[in-house]
């Protein structure tokens, strides 16, 4: 089906079996984000240190937003802030590539499965939702400084 590019196996798997889902007992900061057009919600928490970031999340929404949160959490839990930024930039770039991006699997790991999402502008916002929450929480926590998004 034409949607197979959107709903990669990896995405459906993360959707059905989310990794690392749940809130942290204690956190440095958290951010709640909604997608105002469809009501998808996600809360992302950050804890730990610049060398070892811990991520918790909760949410409800479509397969894309929830799988994206799961992939993000798997990819970034225990990473350094520098790695987090690198992967975040790569993921955002991929989402804005209109489906023409050639993601680097070394950097994006399971995130490469989202390449096809970028062909569906309405779904790009879904995929980015947890990443926006992470960005906001990390700023609040003082792990990164305000930057143009």
């Amino acid at each position, binding site marked *: 089906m034409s949607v197979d590019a959107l709903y990669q196996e990896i995405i*459906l798997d993360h959707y059905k079996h989310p990794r690392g889902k749940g809130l942290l007992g204690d956190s440095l900061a958290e951010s709640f984000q909604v997608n105002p057009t*469809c*009501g*998808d919600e996600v809360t992302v928490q950050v804890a730990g240190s610049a060398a070892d970031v811990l991520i918790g999340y909760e949410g*409800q929404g*479509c397969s*894309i937003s929830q799988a994206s949160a799961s992939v993000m959490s798997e990819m970034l839990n225990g990473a350094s802030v520098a790695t987090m930024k690198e992967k975040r930039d790569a993921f955002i770039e991929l989402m804005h590539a209109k489906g023409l991006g050639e993601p680097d699997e070394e950097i994006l790991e399971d995130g490469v499965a989202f390449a096809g999402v970028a062909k569906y502008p309405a*779904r790009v916002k879904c995929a980015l939702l947890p990443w926006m929450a992470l960005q906001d929480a990390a700023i609040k926590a003082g792990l990164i400084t305000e930057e143009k998004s």
Partner: protein
Amino acid sequence: MASVLDVARIKKDFPILSRTVRGGHPLVYLDSAATSQKPECVLDAERTFYETSNAAVHRGAHQLAEEATQAYEDARAAIAGFVGGAPEDLVFTKNATEGINLVSYAFSNATAESAWGGAPDPRFILAPGDTILVTEMEHHANLIPWQQVCARTGASLRWIPLTEDGRLDLTNLASLIDSTTKIVSVVHQSNILGTINPVRQIMDAAHSVGALGLVDACQSVPHMPVNVDDLGADFITWSGHKMLGPTGIGLLWGRTEALNGMSPFLSGGSMIESVYMDHSTFAAAPSRFEAGVPMVAQSVGLARAVAYLDDLGMDAVHAHETELTAYALSALEQVPGVQIIGPANNVDRGSAISFTVDGIHPHDVGQILDSEGVAVRVGHHCAWPTCRHFGVPATTRISTYIYNDSSDIDIAIEAISTAQRYFGTRV
């Protein structure tokens, strides 16, 4: 299913319906509650206007200006006539949202003017203790403007709650509408639930306490015969783009004296009587509410759209939709895992049908339908509080119009099953 409308012939009038989407699927357009498609004759009317008579209206002394003014005022008369109203009671706005805001600002403007020595119509002056009544099934367009009026005047918002089957719970209407009530603003047909509300009863209750009444008729005027006298409202708003007309044009009908009781909303050219540097006086309605160069070409297009609907006959349009809705409701009921959000029976019900599919998020349902060529809407449909009431983050909605028939429904139903197989919730 045989229809009272000749849908096959109607489809031919809509060029977009012959296109394909997503790699070759014929387009099945089931999103008319968001916006309708436009028949060729509407596009022709607009274009002909631009090619022959385009000019600023009510302004020039030349022939084009005369013709443009005539076209604009003829359109006003035709569209007013479509709902049984008089031309001088019909105001052109850019969409229905502007129409509701226009009325809501009459309240906050009168309130502010009266604080600074003005003498506006007292019906529009609000103070703490005054209340405004809406319902829990309003489109954001008929909710947020009233929240904002409250934030600007100290008045309070009340709402009529919903029953479990998506109807208004009128049990406590008598205590919701009381001497504090200044305006009651209610949707005629819900865009998310499909419910058709007993607006006459609610308007009469409003009038019994001296309050004004507004009906949001966005989803009714395109789909059934609507007569302004029968509704019993002081104001009625709807949009052109949902009834075969161009984007960028909406309508506000008001009772003459209610309109002329309102302070101006947008101010500028064409809405004035006299202008000095330090003060101005204003024209009567409808000019008072039409500042600036208006949507002239769009009014001409919309007038052609109402002529098209009149040719079909609004009774026939309504009968067609009622039939199709019955067909869709019973087809959906037979799909395991589908839950209808809103009235499940076909009594006092329009053609918008919201539903959820167990185990699949509405967004994903919509995406699979799209991949099969079926265009539906997913989300909260600008009625987020209604979603909250039903405990769902969003729904998938199919909504039909004159160019849909039962085969469109069949394709949608089949696509829902495809989605269930795709996401593994059904074998």
